């Protein structure tokens, strides 16, 4: 009996002991294990994530990573528990903008300015991304990759309906909607069951009509939702609805399901992030292209949504030095090159070799680099509760535009309360 238990049992015992004493081993000099939690749960990002962890472990046997991948949505909910734990996981993946700022302001994130300097990130990172990493004088968030938003379209379908791409003006956009409507199709696919695809329309209309500066102030709760400039955004949205620009019952579909309308050729365009290609059938990808959201007010600078992802270190990290070493590796040229080659994620460093990228990726890079301002996204730029209320209001407006004034008054009441709470903290 004992003999049969023997080897396997011994292994288990060793593993259990190793796990139990692992926290003790971590030293101040950065040796010892580093815990790393990430949300890369989709197949391709997961393979990439596990690949870089394996490479790190091979190169740093004295600082092995304890890597946990948690499903995307669960990770978002669990993050607060991770960060407030004693000790917290060392390195975590997260989103730039207000989503990161929330935790930084509460002192839960470690300042890694020394590593930022010693790793030479100041020279390597584009200024826009350096700004995302910094709060006042400290560096807290390491932005490593981003993707762009654009109007994706099927050239063959637009041709069939007689619409010329790219669409560059508001009138042409409405004209395209009419042409699609006349052909018994709809210009835009959109799936708003989880609401955020509608927020993209708000972001772009607001940035194109009122400019990125007003948009940023609105996101920071400094401008009012009852402002006439916000009303103008909804006026334009109303025009889109009047011209039957969107598919019917968009709230019945999630964003992936709405892609089918494009695949079937019932809709020609989709305002979506670069990740749409993950969902798009490979055999049709030759018939997929994108262009910049048309200019509405030519007097305002061009703003684009380009959500940025990255990493940070918990303030309670068990192994702060090891965590910073690993962060320096995550921000290195080598890892960003891999992210670009394997995942098509755009690098935040300027020294990544982009000569080998596809034509589409190059076009995406140009789209962002020629923009005057880069926003994250509605639910990343404003506070979580404001985003929740805002997206609810977008959907309520979509359903019944006549209640707009009530909706905006309610939104502004929320904004005032949230701004007061923020000021009180």
């Amino acid at each position, binding site marked *: 009996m004992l003999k049969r238990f023997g080897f396997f049992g011994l292994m288990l015992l060793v593993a259990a002991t190793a796990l139990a004493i692992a926290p003790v081993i971590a030293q101040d000099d950065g040796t010892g294990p580093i815990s790393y939690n990430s949300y890369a749960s989709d197949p391709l990002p997961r393979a990439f994530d596990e690949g870089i962890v394996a490479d790190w472990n091979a190169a740093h046997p004295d600082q092995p990573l304890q890597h946990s991948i948690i499903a995307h949505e669960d990770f978002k*909910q669990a993050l*607060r528990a991770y*960060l*407030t734990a004693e000790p917290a996981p060392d390195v975590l993946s997260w989103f730039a903008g207000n989503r990161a700022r*929330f*935790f930084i302001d*509460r002192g*839960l994130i470690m300042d890694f300015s020394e590593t930022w300097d010693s790793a030479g990130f100041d020279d390597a990172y584009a200024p826009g991304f350096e700004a995302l990493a910094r709060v006042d004088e400290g560096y807290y968030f390491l932005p490593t990759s981003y993707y762009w938003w654009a109007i994706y379209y099927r050239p063959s379908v637009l041709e069939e309906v007689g619409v010329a791409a790219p669409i560059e003006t508001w009138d042409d956009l409405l004209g395209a909607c009419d042409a699609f409507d006349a052909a018994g199709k709809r210009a835009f696919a959109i799936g*708003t*069951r*989880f*609401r955020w695809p509608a927020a993209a329309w708000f972001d772009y209309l607001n940035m194109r009509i009122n400019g990125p500066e007003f948009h940023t102030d609105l996101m920071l709760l400094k401008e009012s939702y009852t402002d006439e400039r916000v009303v103008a955004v909804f006026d334009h949205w109303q025009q889109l609805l009047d011209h039957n620009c969107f598919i*019917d*019952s*968009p*709230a*019945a*579909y999630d964003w992936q*399901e709405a892609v*089918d*309308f494009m695949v079937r050729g*019932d809709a020609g365009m989709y305002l979506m992030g670069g990740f749409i290609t993950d969902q798009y059938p490979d055999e049709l990808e030759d018939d997929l292209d994108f262009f910049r959201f048309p200019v509405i007010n030519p007097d305002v600078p061009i703003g684009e949504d380009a959500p940025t992802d990255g990493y940070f270190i918990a303030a309670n990290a068990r192994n702060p030095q090891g965590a910073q070493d690993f962060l320096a590796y995550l921000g290195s040229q080598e890892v960003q090159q891999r992210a670009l080659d394997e995942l098509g994620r755009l690098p935040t460093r300027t020294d990544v070799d982009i000569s080998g990228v596809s034509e589409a990726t190059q076009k995406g890079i140009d789209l962002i680099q020629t923009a005057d301002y880069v926003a994250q996204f509605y639910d990343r730029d404003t506070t*979580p*509760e404001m985003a*929740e209320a805002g*997206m*609810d209001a977008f*959907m309520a407006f979509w*359903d*019944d535009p006549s209640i707009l004034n009530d909706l905006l008054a*309610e939104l502004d009441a929320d904004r005032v309360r949230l701004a007061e*709470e923020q000021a009180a*903290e």
Partner: protein
Amino acid sequence: MTSIAQIQPQRARGGTRRHINWTPYLFIIVPLIVYFVWIIGPTLYTFYLSLTNWDGVSPNPSFVGLRNFERLFTDRTFHEALTNNLRWLVVFITIPTTGGLGMALVFNQEMRGGRWYKVSFYSPLVLSLSVIGLIWAWVYNPSLGLINSFLRGVGVADPPGWLGDRDLAIWCIIAAAVWRQVGYVMILYLAGLKNIDPTLTEAAIVDGASRWQLFRHVVLPLLAPVTTIVLVISMIDSLRAFDLVSIMTRGSQRTQVLANFMYIEAFNNYQMGYGAAIAVVLFSISMIFIGFYLWRVIKTELEY
């Protein structure tokens, strides 16, 4: 229930010389500690949190008195959620209850393939609610879903958008919940019917009772304890409705319910205090029904 039944005779006996038997308390102390740490403690803490403003990460919640409740009672979403929970409740205590009872009466008779029918009506219960939510979201899909494909097939030109229609969406979700609940109620009633002494029904038939009289005056009264359980379960299930809403609409499309509203506020918006206030209100409403149930149970126990 058993504990009450066991304690009862003891109390009745306890006259002059009261000897306390400590053994049961010794056994109960471990579950009691667990119960206090994991149920009573967090409940009280939630009550406290509902009086604070807390984001879930700052070290100390700040006390704000009843401000969360003031805000809650003027919050449009709260009224929407409460209305939806009440709709859910009304549907749940009527349709699955009568439907389940009817099916139980039918399948209780010896019939060809009766077992097969029972299994097929019960089978939705085997699925997790999340799976049911996903399946029904596909069924309701306006362009490719089962319902609209059928409607188009029979010539309906412009079928509804179901979950995409803000007036229909909540009813669509409740319908999916009913689909699951009917089988559950049926099983409860089937068990109740099996417990009815056949001599009673046979006696009624011998006495010349019609089928309706037999059902109304013999079977239904004998099923009363089951009916109480079914009603209470339906009420509690409709108040804690969460999974289907979370999966099918995430509370958009005017389908918010209290449990999902609480979840969104607490874990998505980082408003723990406000979420706790919703939880307290939900708890209070649930207590009405749970109290009613306990009152019934204790009353019946005493009657024996």
